[in-house]
């Protein structure tokens, strides 16, 4: 009799206990919104911010950038260059399991790197230096590069590790090929080792994640969030309304014009931090003459004095105050503050000086200025078109009559690579956190090998040579010297007109303690609640 009663009571008691334990967890659901959804769950198909944000929750990379933007261990616990300077060795975390229970091993790393290097992959650009990946033992891999590459780990922060067996079973050994037609299994399904498992994926509508209770990082990270629900909300006003009405807890991209209102609202806080993106203007200095200018037979931007005049015509503080409502950091250099090789002394914001700018223009032979078209996107960066409008007025003060041509990003960025724009806006982020990335894409002479975003026609043998050399230099002191020298050269040449570093703002309910991560990657495993 007693036994029966106990047998009946025990599960009940256990269930009560379980429900007590589960109660606070159940409450810890984060519902969040942003303008756009991840394009796919296939981690190597797209090299794009929102896609990486989602994959960072479900998959793990070998290393990642923590809240302080430092390289931190993830699936790799240690990494070093071996005696052979061309070979990196990664020690892998032991005892890690995928969401389906498969163990994580060196084979998966070899497989994932090879997958990401495949022609269909959009991540291959970050792995061009890797020629070979070999498994040493179950928890060690070595990567051979085509020369010493001191920065290899910097390129692996968004490189997610997939399960080889799962990929084989679901026929997703290769990233999706757009031409092939059909959707692959990995587009809406995922099997990572990450802190959350994918429960439901309706592209553009709703994505639900659930805490991975077996996550290796359970003791290391707060892991307070039990469930993550993501809904993309395109319209900015609706996104803000959803936070105000309490339907979402966290907004990744609150519009700048609503920040004051959100900060003033009860129960909502806005957290800010510097973003990994600098906004600047480029001038076509290589062409014989500008297409849109009223000056024929010569190119005003080829003259350094003209570029210097343009540079001091811009009142960056006014742009910050009036256009950005304080949400920007005026810049004197095309690189955000936290990257390697950034020098505060270089990032001096040029003081606006109309008289001196006019004198420089006169000296260069343009006492009455000239007319030119300024091409801008109108849906890519924060207040991009408004910045261009403001700058147009400032150029007008020194006699440079800029005609603003603001167009959607899909048109602006289709025109840009043709190298035919005279004066244009561009924003640049540095995912590798190293100056080399900036030099390689923005300053190197434009060839098949580099300078793919340098559409200014700027070409300096010294910059090209040092940029190539620094990528092979493993003596970090020497390398830093090279980086500083390139910065000095390009700053002296006034290749670009930096405007500002963008700021990131995250809006959330005030019981959430979640500082801004400068890559704009919310790692929900790091989110904490205020008690």
């Amino acid at each position: 009799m007693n036994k029966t009663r106990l047998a009946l009571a025990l599960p009940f008691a256990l269930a009560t206990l379980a429900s007590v334990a589960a109660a606070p967890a159940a409450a810890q659901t984060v519902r969040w919104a942003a303008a756009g959804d991840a394009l796919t769950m296939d981690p190597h198909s797209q090299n794009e911010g929102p896609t990486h944000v989602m994959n960072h929750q479900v998959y793990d990379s070998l290393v990642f950038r923590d809240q302080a933007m430092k390289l931190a261990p993830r699936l790799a616990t240690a990494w070093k260059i071996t005696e052979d300077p061309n070979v990196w060795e990664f020690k892998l975390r032991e005892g890690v399991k995928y969401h389906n229970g498969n163990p994580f091993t060196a084979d998966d790393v070899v497989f994932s790197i090879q997958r990401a290097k495949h022609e269909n992959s959009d991540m291959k650009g970050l792995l061009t230096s890797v020629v070979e990946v070999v498994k040493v033992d179950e928890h060690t891999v070595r990567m051979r590069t085509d020369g010493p590459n001191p920065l290899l780990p910097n390129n692996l922060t968004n490189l997610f590790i997939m399960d080889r067996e799962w990929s084989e079973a679901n026929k997703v050994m290769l990233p999706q090929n757009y031409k092939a037609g059909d959707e692959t299994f990995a587009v809406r399904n995922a099997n990572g080792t990450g802190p959350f498992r994918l429960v439901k994926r309706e592209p553009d509508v709703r994505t639900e994640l659930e805490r991975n209770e077996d996550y290796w990082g359970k003791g290391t990270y707060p892991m307070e969030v039990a469930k993550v629900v993501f809904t993309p909300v395109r319209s900015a006003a609706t996104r803000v309304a959803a936070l105000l009405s309490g339907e979402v807890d966290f907004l990744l991209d609150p519009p700048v014009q609503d920040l004051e209102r959100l900060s003033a609202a009860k129960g909502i806080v806005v957290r800010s931090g510097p973003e990994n993106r600098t906004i600047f203007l480029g001038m076509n200095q290589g062409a014989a003459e500008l297409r849109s200018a009223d000056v024929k037979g010569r190119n005003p931007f080829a003259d350094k004095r003209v570029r210097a005049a343009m540079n001091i015509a811009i009142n960056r503080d006014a742009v910050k105050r009036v256009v950005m409502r304080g949400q920007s950091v005026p810049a004197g250099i095309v690189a955000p503050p936290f990257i390697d090789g950034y020098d505060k002394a270089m990032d001096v914001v040029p003081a606006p000086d109309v008289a001196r700018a006019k004198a420089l223009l006169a000296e260069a032979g343009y006492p009455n200025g000239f007319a030119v078209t300024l091409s801008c996107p109108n849906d890519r960066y924060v207040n991009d078109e408004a910045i261009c409008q403001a700058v147009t007025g400032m150029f007008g003060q020194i006699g440079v009559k800029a005609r603003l041509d603001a167009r959607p990003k899909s048109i602006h960025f289709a025109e840009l690579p043709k190298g035919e724009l005279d004066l244009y806006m561009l924003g640049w982020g540095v995912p590798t956190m190293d100056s080399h990335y900036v030099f390689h894409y923005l300053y190197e002479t434009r060839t098949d090998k580099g300078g793919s975003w340098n559409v200014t026609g700027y070409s300096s043998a010294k910059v090209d040579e040092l940029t190539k050399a620094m990528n092979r230099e493993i003596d970090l002191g020497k390398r830093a010297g090279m980086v500083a020298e390139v910065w000095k050269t390009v700053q002296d040449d006034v290749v670009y007109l930096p405007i500002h570093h963008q700021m990131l703002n995250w809006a959330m309910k005030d019981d959430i303690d979640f500082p801004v991560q400068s890559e704009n990657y919310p790692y929900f495993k790091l989110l904490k609640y205020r008690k």
Partner: protein
Amino acid sequence: MPAFILRRLLQSVLVMLTVALVSFGLFRFIGDPVNNMVGQEATMAERAALRESLGLDDPVPVQFLRFVVNAAQGEFGVSYRMARPVADVIAERLPATLELALISGFGALALGIALGVYTALRRDGWLSHAIMSLSLVGVSLPTFLIGILLIYVFAVELKLLPAFGRGEVVDLGWWTTGLLTTSGLKSLVMPAITLGLYQLTLIMRLVRAEMLEVLRTDYIKFARARGLTDRTVHFGHALRNTLLPVITITGLQIGSIIAFAIITETVFQWPGVGLLFITAVQFVDIPVMAAYLVLIALIFVVINLIVDLLYFVVDPRLRVQRTGRGQ
């Protein structure tokens, strides 16, 4: 009758081909999808290779022909943005748009006719004046503003209705519906009002004007003289004769609320085809845009066909003429 329907369907093929041709002519001006499909590290050569493999370098007529040939086989390609077959994506999104459009359309029709009749019959009543003045708001305020206003009042301030989304949906296999759950119904209220308000006021004003016109005609006077009840005169004779223009307008409007629910869907993050289209435009997702525009053309053609058929039902003269000629 079958010959008539067949002729109209053949015409519709022509309409759809024209729409596809015009859209392909325009696509080249909205930008380059390749830039959205690769990361910033991709080299020029890689970009060129992708452009080539997608056939974006081919002349417009070639791209158009390829689209038509594939579409004729039911093959609409893969979305550049979502990496999924376009037909699947549209089939997934269509129920949301159709539910929203039909509910707001029929709601607007029912209420519009009722209010139109009421204001015509009680021309000088204070309620009629109030309704007429209020209806000005419906015609003059732009859709997105009405949407934002509703969100502000009912979601942010009163916290009664959800600000965005479709709520919980029930998957019937071939159709997803939000009509069977409370959250689904609550989510439907504001978008349906936003989308239907303009049509409601339009129909109401039209019905009122037509009613007033008809009530002045001789046969209404004779009907009254015959001693018929007000009810028979108003609804049997007057209303019936006002319906022809109302049907035409409603048909056109239903087409346009399905096709142009874009703004409402964007404001409320309603996961329908309109939202899909606007996102596709921004990404230059050509396969989705092409399929959407052709689908919309089809919807317009079908609705117009239904409207023409309704004329036969409402207007006995058409039937008489047809049969007369047939004899």
